[in-house]
């Protein structure tokens, strides 16, 4: 009798434990981005030099779109890499566009100066662009192909080599299967 009951309780408990153990084999935080391979949301942004840029006007070029803020530490970490990547590809048919989020204008300008950033940068004053792109933390980067489709999304700091590689893919219209993340640090 006792053995029967024992086996019965094991039969109930074991599957639950197995299920919990199964949890270790997957990454619960990974959420497949619905934006990949979709048309990028149109927007217009005023650059720090006063010019206006419309995303639609950049059709025909591969676009690297980066959301950042001067107060964000990982943004500082990636800033030099981004400028280096820009220097490598700026003569090709590719565009860099930085968008500062939830930032003060003078701080954002100081940031650009500090890192000698030469590619186009503007400010998302209302925060609407970030909402359209589903940005949940910065830095976050998007790669857009010449037809205006999002080909790759990267959450967190990104390296120069990855920027150029993914831009190359975007230029040839290759859509990544998954979004990427790097230098991911949980909020402590």
């Amino acid at each position, binding site marked *: 009798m006792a053995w029967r009951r024992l086996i019965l309780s094991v039969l109930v*408990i074991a599957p639950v434990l197995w299920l919990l153990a199964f949890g270790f084999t997957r990454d619960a935080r990974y959420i497949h981005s619905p934006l990949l391979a979709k048309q990028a949301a149109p927007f217009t942004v005023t650059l720090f030099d006063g010019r206006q840029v419309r995303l639609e006007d950049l059709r025909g070029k591969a676009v690297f779109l980066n959301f950042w803020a001067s107060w964000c530490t990982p943004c500082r970490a990636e800033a030099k890499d981004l400028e280096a990547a820009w220097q490598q590809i700026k003569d090709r048919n590719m565009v860099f566009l930085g968008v500062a989020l939830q930032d003060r204008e003078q701080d954002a300008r100081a940031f650009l100066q500090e890192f000698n950033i030469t590619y186009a940068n503007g400010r998302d004053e209302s925060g609407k662009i970030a909402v359209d792109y589903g940005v949940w933390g910065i830095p976050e980067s998007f790669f857009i192909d010449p037809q205006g489709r999002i080909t790759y999304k990267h959450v967190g700091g990104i390296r120069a080599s990855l920027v150029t590689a993914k831009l190359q893919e975007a230029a040839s219209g290759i859509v990544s299967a998954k979004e990427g993340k790097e230098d991911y640090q949980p909020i402590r």
Partner: protein
Amino acid sequence: MTATLGHTAIIMAFLAALCGVVCPIVGSRPGLERYFSFTRTAILSQFVLVTLAAGALIYGLIATDFSIRYVVFNTTRGTPIYYRVTGLWGALEGSLLLWEWILIIFSGLVAWIYRHRQRETMPWVLMVFSIVSAFFLGVIAFVSNPFETISPVPLDGRGLNPLLEDANMMTHPPLLYAGFVGLTVPYAFAIAALIRGKLDEAWIVATRRWTIIAWFFLTAGNLVGAWWSYHVLGWGGYWAWDPVENAAFMPWLPATAFLHSVQVQERRRMLKVWNLSLIIIAFSLTIFGTFLTRSGIISSIHAFSSGPVGSVFLIFLAFVLLASFGLLAFRADLLKGQPELDSMVSRESAFLLNNIVLVSALFTIFLGTIFPLLSEAVAGTQVSVGAPYFNSVTVPLFLLLVFLMGVGPMIAWRRASWDNLKRNFLWPSVASLSLALALFFWRIRDFLPLLGFTLLAFVVFSILYDTGLALRARRRVAGEGILRGLVTLCRRNQRRYGGLVVHLGVVLIVLGIAGSMGYSTEREATLGLKEHLSIGRYLIQFEGLKGTQQPTHFRVEGSFRVFHQGTEWGILSPALKFFPTQQSPIGRAVHRSSPSEDIYLILSGFSDLNQNQATLKVLVRPLVVWIWIGGFVIALGTLLAILPLGKASPEEK
């Protein structure tokens, strides 16, 4: 130095815990009984050593000893002393130490209180404590060491997560841990009873107060967590059915069920296996909760660090479940021959139904929490389960529970006669139905809120009516007035009246939840200077933005003048805080409470400071304040139930 001291103390405590596990086993051999007495020494030395270790870490935090890694990540030179101390539980390693510390304080108290009583049982009770303690000490010593050193020693630390810099940091985590750890006491007595095969009511009677205290800490811990979420996180809610919240709430359900069903066992010697199972499940859920939050297997808005700790907790959970239920399976033969239910209309069956409802709620919440895992394991697709599922499934269950709360304490044991039902429930039913009618004609037309308010009224009326009858009897018997009569009643039957006061507290909480769930309104608008928005009876006018540099962050504050039905209520200033180490700004919502509703302001965005434009979100949430008042009423009721006010009933000795 501090680190070495702390780590050495932990390792020595771990060895003491191992002794505490082995001693009763050796002592159970004939002729070796003297080893039994070492179990208490083992607990005592763990108490001293763990206190030393906790003291060392607190000292390291206060003295900003940045050679300790944990100190670096949880404090800075600028951190006020208050938050340096609370840094002890600011992250995983320290939290485990706090848990272990509370556990060993509870164990020490048990060992001391029962030093002359329960001589045969105590070694086994203390052994269970030592097993649990050995696990935690092992984790602290070898897996997640808070005394790990760092080199080179940094000049300043990184500091606490800014969200943790709040006064509730002092209350919420320690209360919750005290609740979790408190459940170890009845669990330890239950396991000791199973090991010895002495399965009468002794273990329940011995742990009655402990269970009530643990239950209270658990309730308070969850409520303070809700309060924290409400006033700091700035989303206007207090409960999101997030896995981490569920993890803290789930042990509360079997603990509540246990609190009621043990009364049936005490009175009628029924439900023995059920009670043992409940307490095993409740204790397992405290381990499960830590596993869930620290393993990262379920995605949560609460970002906890994860690491190897998760798998260690899973192994311990497996051990606890298999060993406890294995023991229960072997002893079940001794648990036979219980009396059967006499009637479906009786207090036993009301309590039984209460248990079924609570366990069903536990099951549905557990299922919802791990469902993302289940669906991925079975179907390979990711799904997320959100508040709609939890609300729609648990609300009917909790309403049924409220109804039972009105019936259970008043209905007769064994078999309720028609007279008993009529005497206790006729007037409360009439009164609550009349109130329902009045509410319906006033403005409440939706079914669920109307049902909820009616049931709440029923509980209140039945408690008042019953107390009224008892007071009338006091006046007739002893000529006592209302106040004097109440004092006598409470002193004569502390547990009953303490319980009734707790029920009133629960009624207030449910009232707050029902009001804020059903009748909240919100509006969002972007306002220029002196522009306003109106919501309900409120008009809110924007008075400008202000930016200030604080020691740890830059703060942008919007000033809003609030008018309530034309009268000015003054200025409320929600803010956004920009921390250099954080990826996104942290909101500081503000609210103003009144008995009927809260107005809650969130600054969701702003233009340049000099342009003076702000996006404001306003929520009006009715009756929220009663949730927190209910918490205080529960605290009162708990005190009334456990404080030695009157004569202790003889069986409690």
